């Protein structure tokens, strides 16, 4: 359980959580630079703090696109940055995660109970693994 709580935000119309300790920055919308002939999950590239950061394609987690992202959340794991698109960020306090629903496949570590209800929590290790970022 992260000591620093969770960041909860909307991604392609659904609410997701991720451990706040993995969040490096939250910034306003900047259009990623498209990278031709890239992997399907790459929305584009951002440059920040002397680094080229890949951006996870909008809606990749759910298989749908929304086109409504307003913020970019840059997460860091094992020295690798990844940018996620979303909107409406807010913090949620720490709490135990409950097991995932069986029908929700993906890089999730469990469900977080938030004021808005049950929210799936991203497991960045699993996400990086599925993207080949390891």
């Amino acid at each position, binding site marked *: 359980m992260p000591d620093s709580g969770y960041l909860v935000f909307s991604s392609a119309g659904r609410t997701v959580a991720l451990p706040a300790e993995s969040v490096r920055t939250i910034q306003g919308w900047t259009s990623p630079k498209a990278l031709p*002939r890239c992997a*399907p999950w790459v929305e584009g590239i951002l440059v920040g703090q002397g680094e080229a950061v890949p951006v996870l394609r909008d809606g990749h987690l759910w298989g749908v696109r929304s086109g409504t992202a307003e913020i970019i959340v840059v997460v860091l794991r094992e020295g690798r940055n990844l940018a996620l698109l979303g909107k409406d960020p807010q913090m949620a306090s720490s709490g135990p995660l409950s097991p995932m629903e069986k029908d929700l496949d993906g890089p999730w570590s469990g469900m977080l109970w938030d004021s808005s209800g049950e929210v799936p929590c991203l497991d960045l290790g699993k996400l990086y693994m599925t993207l080949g970022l390891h």
Partner: protein
Amino acid sequence: MSPAWVFLLVGTGEELAVPHTSIYRILHRGAPEFSAYAAGALDLNDFLGLPGDPSCPGVVVLLASGQIWMAGNAVMQGAGDQVSYLALRPELFANARPWCRGVLVGKGRWAFVVEEAAVA
């Protein structure tokens, strides 16, 4: 000392960057050998899946490696044109051969640095 770069214009405003030491010759349209080399050149727009810009003059790029490319235009890095190189990980290209090994960023400039061997 950082290398001088040659910027190749592709698509409608995208730039690819190649170290100038990798370039053997650049043939502009109208050069005597242009048509002969253009016939066997790899069109970078086709390779990248980008629409061409009809307003670009078109250049043939002869590389020291023996590769021959076609681009919209070619521009040498200016003396005051400071850029920084940022590496890109090959995982961003999944199963495709990574044609890009990094980006050059500077004041208003963004260019993809080409991994020449992967452009074929």
